[in-house]
């Protein structure tokens, strides 16, 4: 059981040029897949397709197919897909949509919509709050949060849904280093302990190096590299694809460029 993108080509409604071309990727349960690429390469579109929002909710032309646990997204009902695949978009403040007066109720919105038993709703909400250290702001008005706080709350709201898969589009963009670490740990734990399959789009390659099992690079709508995280992130072509390598890789490369063999440097 996994999310399978099979040779997906997709163009937004009203446009003729496909943003994704022949993309094939799997999101496996219990694994974290990182996706990197230059801005405009199609990372966000990839997320929309993996979740089924493209084409079901926003139209557009898709060839190839996307299946979630065996069901094709094209004919599915969005709310059913939503139960299986949690998605976090880039703009965090627009995702706090519940209209609820407090952060706690915002996070509880998803489980409530699923008509889960009362105790279940409460448990899940508190679990998400604890995982992302949001205890101090549970009473706050969601409209008055800072960008970073809103981003963490939005993630908590998705986690509370208890989906089998998570598709996250730059979930740490507005977070400070502590927040970023927290998110990385939470995702890794979700994959390891509850078998959630995670797809995370990020520019922070150090974060991906730490937590991803595999990494895929997307460039101009196609997957140009895909494999074990350290292999892909150590690739020489990363800068050509508009991606900054992890710090360790840059450092080693800088030393190499200056004529230092890495072994030599350690004397």
């Amino acid at each position: 059981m996994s999310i399978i993108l099979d040779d997906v080509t997709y163009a937004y409604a009203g446009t003729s040029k496909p943003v994704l071309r022949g993309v094939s990727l799997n999101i496996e349960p219990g694994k974290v897949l990182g996706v990197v690429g230059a801005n405009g390469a199609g990372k966000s579109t990839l997320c929309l397709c993996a979740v089924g929002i493209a084409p079901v909710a926003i139209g557009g032309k898709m060839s190839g197919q996307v299946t979630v646990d065996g069901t094709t997204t094209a004919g599915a009902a969005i709310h059913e897909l939503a139960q299986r695949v949690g998605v976090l978009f880039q703009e965090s403040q627009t995702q706090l949509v519940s209209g609820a007066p407090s952060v706690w109720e915002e996070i509880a919105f998803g489980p409530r919509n699923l008509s889960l038993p009362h105790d279940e709703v409460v448990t899940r909400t508190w679990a998400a709050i604890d995982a992302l250290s949001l205890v101090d702001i549970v009473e706050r008005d969601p409209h008055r949060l800072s960008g970073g706080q809103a981003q963490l709350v939005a993630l908590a709201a998705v986690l509370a849904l208890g989906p089998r898969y998570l598709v996250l589009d730059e979930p740490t963009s507005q977070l400070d280093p502590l927040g970023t670490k927290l998110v990385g740990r939470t995702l890794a734990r979700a994959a390891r302990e509850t078998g959630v399959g995670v797809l995370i789009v990020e520019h922070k390659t150090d974060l991906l190096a730490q937590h991803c099992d595999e990494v895929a690079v997307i460039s101009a709508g196609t997957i140009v590299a895909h494999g074990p995280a350290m292999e892909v992130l150590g690739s020489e072509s990363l800068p050509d694809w508009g991606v900054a390598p992890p710090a360790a890789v840059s450092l080693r490369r800088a030393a190499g460029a200056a004529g230092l063999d890495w072994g030599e440097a350690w004397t």
Partner: protein
Amino acid sequence: MIAFAVRGWTAPLVVLVVMLALVVWAGVFRRYLPYLAATALLLVSIMLVNTFLYPDATDVLFSVGPFNATGTGLTAASQAALRVLAFATSVALFALTTRTDELVDDLERRGLGRRASFIIQTAIGTVPRLTERAREITESQRSRGLNTEGGLLARVRGLVPLAGPLVLSSLTEVEQRTMALEARAFTAPGKRTVLRAYPDSGAQRALRWLLFLGTIGLVAAELAGLLAWLP
């Protein structure tokens, strides 16, 4: 309704006293005062118009220029004023003691439906959301030299740079918000889990029925002329 339906002094006076007692008991007297102030203008005009211009009244009390203040007029004025005051007080009481989200929640539990409650809550939340956004926009534009502290012309010129991003972002967001709603299973079937059960004791229910039936009864009695003996 009782205050308006039944003629004479008693009804509006009783209602007003009860409402004021409730206001004080709920501890909202200070927040009630602005509501009171809001009705002031209306009350003054009612008093003046009725006292001086009551048709066919002959029991003149005193005169101001060509206008005669009549006893009948004064009585009518006071009763009308009391009615308005009673009504305004009951409205204020409701507004001050009911939390909209609790009200909407309860209504939803009784069958209002999640869409309606969502619309109401989002509508209410629009103001703080847009206020916060407007504040951010104002900061950015002022930092680019937009003069918000000048005369009228300057402020009018500032309208587009201030309102523009607000409107634009609200519009471009609609699609994102819709997708986010779907992603949070908003359109899933079934009844949403109830978070809070609002205690609705037998006593409260009985009181509601009593008030309801009582009002109908009083209005009927008034129409049937049974209450003519009340002052």
